[in-house]
């Protein structure tokens, strides 16, 4: 049955503006300004979800981002569906649809609730202990665990919303707009600092803005009215920017912070179209003032998790700010004065307070006196030992505490209620401070961790710094600000403050019960269902480190990151293990403080903007001619050009054959190109390549191999001497950037005396490679003026030439083993030159080929691809490329490593050719190579690195690396596959034209 629990209009809620929304299929009404939680409470709905492990009914517990229980799925079943949204944070809007999570078939009747009765079988570490065996069953276990443990559903269609990133630079960033944050922002801005104030809620003023009581006064006004005037003033300050609905997610080193600004989440759906939903702010602040406030602690007693049990401060906030009563018969349970603030607020609004149970004995407090005046029964020195009511609390059992607080004494007394407010004191919200690298200290007086040392230019003020009362804040914050901002005075020096709050507190981490701990369910982490019993079990099983206990019991590992219960977990550990709180430390607080959407994280970098795509200037031609593309780094490279429905294999066979029989053409523009100039260019190349370069004539090309200092092959390519002091180096497509980086590194740091300048020209020139027996004729037609005779223009040489008026460089170099020419031309002319080549080659059936055919053709010749046939463990000697390693050169990068004890081993993996017994059988790249199948364990000798069916040799060919392979020519080896064994013979890696006759054919 629903009833209206709206008690009084309030500042935040606009009762003239009614909003309808749906929760679990039923339509309800709330008002503009309500959160989903306040609107549900106004409709007398407490039960909103089921707990994670035991599926116990759970209700709304807090009024902020620390909420562990009231997490819901929004917009069920639409593209905007979002799991794990805290009902306490989402503002209602017309058309909101939300539903409970982690329950089936419904929140009121949840089959998983049986876990609650099975709980003796589900201790801490249950999953670790149970699902270990047999290991092969894990996949089956996982399916059921995930199904029953659902924390909401993620959308299965793309997110329709727009997100963006924004950089902000400011002098002072103030986090949190409670009373401390307002004072700080005003002081900073008025002293000329460019200031940004961010607040996660929709309104400014924190908890003071609804502190409408004669017991808290500033300059003789109640604190709420005083603060309201301050807020009105700061809104007018020009160099102060205020952002509400903005939650700082991360506080990194050097005052770099990430914050999520919500722009449309509170608007009706139809008003959100084409608007940015969320913005990720990347803030770099010269100074940071953290004023994040504090979070009220729950109390840990048996069955402290029933729907209807809220933090006392949340009950106060729902009444004061939203005008909502959480119940009609309220009980408050406390160990400090905060609950009396709640009681007074409730009394003022005519909401019935049944009783107050206070752990403390007699205390001289104005707030208690005021409460007593209203004839409310206060049980002093008592504790709650149990609660009742399955889907909503209906009564509590209380008992007297012993003097030392370790036991309960006397007899039980029952009091009925429909709502229970609990208050265990306050925990400073130091999460962001510790994220930044700040170190905490423990204050024994009131058992709190507070900031101790700051790693950057920042301070914490207000209750996140341990100043909880109005007088402490208004005395300490201005002092700290003066020093931090280096200013002479603030306007808060001679302020009159009246606070009736008595600071005494009786801190008992785990409240005693008449039952033994093992028979109680005293929840420490509400979202993950971790109880005091679990923590004690972990300690009994030998866990000591707080980080280990956390992981074993899952305390603090929910979406709320244990904002409520972590301190109690620490307290229980320290009491049980008799260690000091301050020495235990805390678990690490990691970003984000509250969950971020993936949308906010990626911003505009989605779809085609996810990564940079590099295209050659000839790309459009490949597209028009139906090429399939392959990603090589960021490049899109033509992979093969299927014709008439060919598959890849058929297309590659045709392309490969055409390239050897007549002519093929390849877009090689993606190869890295580095322009090298300077009087020491030759010497530089001598040092970075394994072979000698000083004697290379102008106009000649040479293949080079580049090693790391550890002797392992790193990159390869052809470098051409254009002039006395001018070379152009080519690198592999993927290696271009790293090669340039490595060369720059050596030039700048090891050999700064060399006169050498490096410029990347990869994008400036396009490269068109024409190969095959008819390539010469085609190039001659495209560039009539050039002399292509073998005598004048032999293999491995270069010429400057012109196509029409356009300068180009022609290299006669070959990666296919065929006679081959490469035209390098300014990128913007490339497509038309390519088309010229196609036109000129028509009569020779010129065939465009892609990377797959290129790989096949070079494999026939045994040419390596750095990165495919090599990994970071192959020396040139391992590759059987001894010929390229200069014996004469005094030094080059990697030389000394080539004769380390490890690199001279005979049984290193070496590159060999592999021929299958069955010429039709194509090996799988990556397949293992073995010699003896009967040995146990079977010795892995190596693996296949490249494998193709060669249409020119009409058989399967492969390259592979094999231990000691160089000395195994002719030997039989085995490639064991899942269902068969393939027999191969080790051969020389060059399969075709060993004499290189085709280069001049």
């Amino acid at each position, binding site marked *: 049955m629903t009833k209206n629990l709206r008690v009084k209009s309030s500042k935040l809620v606009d009762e003239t503006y009614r909003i309808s929304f749906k929760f679990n299929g039923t339509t309800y009404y709330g008002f503009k300004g309500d959160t989903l939680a306040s609107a549900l409470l106004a409709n007398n709905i407490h039960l909103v979800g089921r707990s994670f492990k035991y599926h116990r009914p759970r209700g709304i517990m807090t009024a902020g981002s620390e909420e562990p229980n009231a997490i819901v799925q929004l917009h069920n079943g639409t593209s905007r569906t979002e799991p794990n949204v805290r009902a306490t944070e989402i503002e209602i809007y017309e058309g909101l649809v939300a539903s409970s999570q982690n329950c089936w078939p419904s929140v009121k009747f949840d089959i998983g609730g049986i876990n609650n009765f099975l709980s003796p079988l589900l201790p801490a570490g249950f999953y670790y202990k149970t699902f270990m065996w047999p290991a092969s069953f894990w996949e089956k276990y996982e399916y059921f665990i995930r199904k029953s443990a659902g924390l909401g559903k993620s959308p299965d269609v793309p997110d329709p919303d727009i997100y963006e990133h924004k950089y902000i630079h400011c002098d002072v960033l103030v986090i949190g707009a409670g009373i401390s944050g307002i004072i700080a922002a005003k002081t900073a801005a008025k002293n000329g600092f460019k200031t940004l104030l961010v607040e996660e809620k929709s309104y400014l003023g924190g908890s003071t803005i609804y502190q409408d009581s004669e017991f808290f006064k500033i300059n003789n006004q109640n604190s709420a009215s005083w603060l309201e005037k301050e807020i009105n003033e700061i809104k007018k300050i020009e160099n102060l920017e205020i952002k509400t609905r903005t939650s700082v997610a991360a506080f*990194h*080193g*050097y005052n*770099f912070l990430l914050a999520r600004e919500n722009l449309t989440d509170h608007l009706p759906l139809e008003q959100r179209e084409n608007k940015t939903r969320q913005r990720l702010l990347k803030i*770099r602040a010269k100074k940071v003032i953290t004023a994040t406030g504090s979070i009220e602690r729950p109390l840990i007693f048996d069955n402290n998790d029933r729907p209807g049990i809220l933090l006392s401060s949340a009950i106060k906030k729902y009444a004061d700010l939203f005008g909502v009563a959480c119940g009609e018969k309220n009980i408050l349970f406390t160990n400090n004065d905060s609950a009396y603030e709640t009681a007074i607020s409730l009394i003022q609004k005519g909401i019935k307070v049944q009783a107050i149970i206070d752990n403390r004995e007699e205390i001289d407090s104005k707030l208690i006196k005021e409460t007593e005046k209203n004839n409310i029964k206060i049980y002093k020195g008592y504790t709650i030992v149990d609660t009742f009511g399955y889907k909503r609390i209906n009564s509590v059992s209380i008992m007297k505490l012993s003097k030392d607080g370790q036991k309960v004494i006397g007899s039980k007394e029952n009091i009925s209620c429909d709502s229970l407010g609990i208050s265990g004191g306050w925990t400073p919200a130091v999460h962001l401070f510790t994220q930044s*690298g700040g170190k905490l200290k423990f204050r024994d007086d009131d058992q709190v961790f507070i900031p101790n040392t700051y*790693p950057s230019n920042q301070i914490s003020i207000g209750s996140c710094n341990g100043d909880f009362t109005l007088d402490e804040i208004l005395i300490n914050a201005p002092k700290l600000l003066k020093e931090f901002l280096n200013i002479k005075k603030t306007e808060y020096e001679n302020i009159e403050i009246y606070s009736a709050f008595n600071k005494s507190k009786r801190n008992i981490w785990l409240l005693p019960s008449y039952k033994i701990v093992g028979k109680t369910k005293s929840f420490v982490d509400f979202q993950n269902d971790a109880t005091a019993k679990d923590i004690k079990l972990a300690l009994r099983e030998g866990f000591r480190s707080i980080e280990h206990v956390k992981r074993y019991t899952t305390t603090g590992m929910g979406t709320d990151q244990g904002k409520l219960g972590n301190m109690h977990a620490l307290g229980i550990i320290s009491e049980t293990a008799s260690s000091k709180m301050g020495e235990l430390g805390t678990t690490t607080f990691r970003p984000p403080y509250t969950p971020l959407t993936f949308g906010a994280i990626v911003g505009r970098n989605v779809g085609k903007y996810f990564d940079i795509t590099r295209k050659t200037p000839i790309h459009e031609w490949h597209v028009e001619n139906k090429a399939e593309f392959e990603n090589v780094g960021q490049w899109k490279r033509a992979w093969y050009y299927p014709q008439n429905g060919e598959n890849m294999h058929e297309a590659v066979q045709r392309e490969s054959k055409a390239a050897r029989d007549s002519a093929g053409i390849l877009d090689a523009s993606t190869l890295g190109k580095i322009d090298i100039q300077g009087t020491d260019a030759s010497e530089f190349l001598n040092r970075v390549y394994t072979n000698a370069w000083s004697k290379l004539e102008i106009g000649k090309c040479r293949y080079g191999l580049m090693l790391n*200092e*550890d002797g392992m092959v790193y990159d390869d390519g052809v470098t051409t001497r254009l002039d006395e002091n001018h070379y152009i180096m080519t690198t592999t497509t993927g290696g271009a950037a790293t090669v340039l*980086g490595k060369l*720059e*590194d050596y030039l*700048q*740091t*090891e050999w*700064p005396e060399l006169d050498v300048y490096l410029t990347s020209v990869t994008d400036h020139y396009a490269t068109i490679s024409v190969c095959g027996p008819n390539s010469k004729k085609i190039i001659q037609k495209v560039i009539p003026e050039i002399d292509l005779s073998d005598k004048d223009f032999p293999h491995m040489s270069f010429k400057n030439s012109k196509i029409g008026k356009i300068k180009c460089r022609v290299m006669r170099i070959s990666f296919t083993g065929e006679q081959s020419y490469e035209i390098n031309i300014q990128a913007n002319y490339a497509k038309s030159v390519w088309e010229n080549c196609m036109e000129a080659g028509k009569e020779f059936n010129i065939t465009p080929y892609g990377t797959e055919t290129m790989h096949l053709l070079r494999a026939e010749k045994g040419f390596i691809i750095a990165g495919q046939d090599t990994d970071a463990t192959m020396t040139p000697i391992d590759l059987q490329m001894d010929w390229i390693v200069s014996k004469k050169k*005094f*030094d080059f990068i990697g*030389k*000394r*490593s080539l004769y*380390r*004890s490890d690199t001279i081993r005979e049984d290193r993996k070496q590159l060999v050719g592999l021929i299958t017994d069955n010429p039709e059988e194509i090996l799988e790249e990556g397949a293992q190579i073995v010699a003896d199948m009967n040995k146990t364990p079977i010795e892995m000798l190596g693996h296949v690195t490249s494998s193709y069916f060669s249409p020119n040799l009409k058989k399967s060919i492969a390259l592979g690396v094999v231990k000691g392979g160089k000395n195994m020519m002719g030997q039989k080896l085995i490639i064991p596959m899942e269902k068969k064994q393939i027999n191969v013979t080790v051969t020389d890696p060059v399969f075709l034209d060993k004499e290189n006759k085709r280069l001049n054919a």
Partner: protein
Amino acid sequence: MFLINCPFCGEREQSEFKAGGEAHIVRPKQPTELSDDQWAEYLFMRKNIKGIQFERWNHIHGCRKWFNMVRDTSNDEIKAVYKMGEKPPVK
């Protein structure tokens, strides 16, 4: 995320830079004269200390210059930056 004072460009975001390992390791002038152990010392051995560390950094998305940095690894405080070839300004 650090704010790094590139000696050539001034203060820039860390995302513009690449870390390049320990600084002041000089490549041996005559590698061929070194024993395997001596060469391995140069090639593989790097310090990983808690406290003051000398590092190489490259302003890879900026001026592309390499430079040295003195950083306290315990709190990430950058004590100094200086150009290649210069002596460290702090001990």
